[in-house]
């Protein structure tokens, strides 16, 4: 990590407000990812609806405080829609595929029951639905929804193109493909808007089927033009060169990676299946991981890369990643609270409790909202040269 970043081309202006004494900059994308994945891990530990709601609120707070105005930074509400639909699907399925009603339950309503033959009696369709069944389905769905929102928060807060730069060198082709594909949609929208505007200025038709032809052709031409330019630019920067890898080293890399993946697979199987023999678990996992790392190192040697304007990793990055990891560690440590409080009982119904240590851990993760540096203001984001210069208006001449 270089001690200091290069000066930005456009010196960002400090925004008035609570953060006025701090220099706005973008946080290292990996710091956000570590923070969000750690929080998702912490969420996987608990089924307590109060803690899950707190996680959602903390995510919302951090996003409000630290998101930029970039296109990917406006997507959190779609993750919230996804979360709501996850909970709804879970509740509906629990009501349709009845899991049985006990005499102690609070009976809510009864769905028409479709009888199943005796050899298929394990699955029941319809029947009585209890409050407990719906609540447990909702809480279960809420946990998955929280984990989805954690991933959504990382996608909202971190710049996806910059995050791809931390891929190991051996996988750079994959990174290139992903970068190109995620920049296609915004570029298409941009060129459609431009063509549309040009037609309107010329008092041309902007609606209807015939106008569609007048828009689609220039947009396609624009896309072709762009991809040719991109290909030329990538070629001039040395992408797609095989490098000086011999046949032997390529074979060795392939063998190492293949063996490593096999090790990881059998390791995961051994860890998850309790009846599997002991050496299949952790040792196999560790050996597989080692082999994979060796393969990636070896494969990365044929690619020599330099990084342009590397993202610095400073105190703020440590703080954000650290508070996420610490919250996960606290929830898994089982110290200072009763583990049963993380999974309040639904059968029989009881009010959930709010254990002190997990609550503090989740609030600690929310500290990322003010530990991270304030985001670059809108003008500075637009001025960075990572956005390609405006294309000539050639496309609109069609």
């Amino acid at each position, binding site marked *: 990590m270089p001690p200091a970043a290069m000066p930005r081309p456009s010196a960002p202006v400090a925004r008035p407000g609570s953060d006025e004494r701090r220099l706005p900059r973008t946080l290292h994308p990996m710091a956000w990812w570590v923070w969000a994945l750690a929080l998702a891990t912490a969420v996987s530990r608990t089924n307590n609806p109060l803690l899950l709601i707190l996680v959602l609120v903390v995510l919302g707070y951090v996003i409000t405080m630290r998101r930029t105005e970039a296109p990917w930074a406006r997507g959190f509400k779609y993750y919230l829609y996804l979360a709501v639909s996850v909970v709804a699907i879970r509740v509906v399925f629990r009501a349709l595929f009845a899991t049985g*009603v006990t005499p102690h339950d609070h009976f809510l309503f009864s769905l028409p029951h479709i009888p199943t033959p005796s050899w298929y009696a394990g699955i029941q369709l319809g029947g009585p639905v*209890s409050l407990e069944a719906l609540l447990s389905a909702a809480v279960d769905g809420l946990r998955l929804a929280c984990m989805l929102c954690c991933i959504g928060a990382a996608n909202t807060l971190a710049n996806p193109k910059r995050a791809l730069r931390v891929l190991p060198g051996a996988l750079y082709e994959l990174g290139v493909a992903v970068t190109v594909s995620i920049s296609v949609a915004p570029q298409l929208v941009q060129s459609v808007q431009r063509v549309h505007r040009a037609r309107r200025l010329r008092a041309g038709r902007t609606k209807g089927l015939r106008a569609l032809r007048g828009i689609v052709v220039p947009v396609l031409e624009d896309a072709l033009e762009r991809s040719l330019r991109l290909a030329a630019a990538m070629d001039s920067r040395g992408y797609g060169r095989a490098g000086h890898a011999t046949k032997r080293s390529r074979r060795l890399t392939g063998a190492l990676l293949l063996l490593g993946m096999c090790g990881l697979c059998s390791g995961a199987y051994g860890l998850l299946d309790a009846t599997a023999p002991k050496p299949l678990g952790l040792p196999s996992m560790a050996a597989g991981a080692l082999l994979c790392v060796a393969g990636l190192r070896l494969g990365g040697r044929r690619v020599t890369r330099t990084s342009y304007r590397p993202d610095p990793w400073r105190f703020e990055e440590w703080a954000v990643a650290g508070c996420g990891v610490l919250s996960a560690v606290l929830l898994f440590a089982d110290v200072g609270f009763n583990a049963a409080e993380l999974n309040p009982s639904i059968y029989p119904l009881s009010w959930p409790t709010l254990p002190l240590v997990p609550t503090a851990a989740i609030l600690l993760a929310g500290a990322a909202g003010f530990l991270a540096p304030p985001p670059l203001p809108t003008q500075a984001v637009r001025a960075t040269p990572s956005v390609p210069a405006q294309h000539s208006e050639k496309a609109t001449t069609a």
Partner: protein
Amino acid sequence: MTTRTLRALARAAGTLSLTVGALTVAAGPAAASPQPMGQCTTSAGAVLAVDFSRWGGPVYRSCGTTPTTGYELLNQGGWRTTGTGHDGPAFICRIGYSGYQGGKQFPPPAQDDCVLTPPASAYWSYWHADPGANTWEYSQLSAMLYKPKPGSVDLWIFGGTNVQGTEGRPTLSPDQLRAHNAQPTGGSAPQGSDATKKADPLPPRTDTGPAPEHPASPSPSPSGTSPTASPSPSASPSPSASAATSPSTAPPPGTSPKVVNAAPAADAAHDTGSMTPIAVTAGLVVLIGGAGGYAAMRRRRSE
């Protein structure tokens, strides 16, 4: 127009509900109730046995009337179970008896949090022995669907099983657990009916699964070794009516756990907790939400 449409709709709905009602198997409320152990005979009542030996406890056995389901048998007279969050109450994850350690349910949360389906290496496996049979049969139905026959034995043991059925079989034989008396012994009525909790009637239209193949099998299967046909003269397995938790069968030599009769008891008290944590959470949500909203407002004003 609208009224006619509405009326047509209502008629259609009525027909549909009638059809649906005809389709559903009308299950009469099962009047299952816990009984003292002496009420179970070779041909009446179902014996429930639960093995707590994993946690240093005995094998409890109690008696319930038929018709019943395996689930009801396990949720009356002081017995309670907990399902998993993933599968609902039908998957028995914990079992507790109010007469053993104050109704604490096993396995405790430290051993299994009962959120997901427990692993095949540590779960409550469910075994049946039909009247007269002296071998255990692994239950092919869930506890809510299985209907024990009169005179049969239901056994729950904690541990692991394998697909082949060679591991995790019960160490006790059905004959060590079942009732051997042909006539009920002791008091006729379930004692202290005000203190004991009967299984409540199931909600309407509950599917309790297929009916048992032999609803009433008064004649036990003619297996030669079956000891059930003759009322056993030995005094050991016939407890007196007042026997609450008296050891009955003498433990056979070896490591077999002790068998103890579990009398019908009142349910263990359940604390529903307080609503203060919810109020605290609501306060925190308002606080954090307010802070975020304030910051967003300031940012918008400054731009």
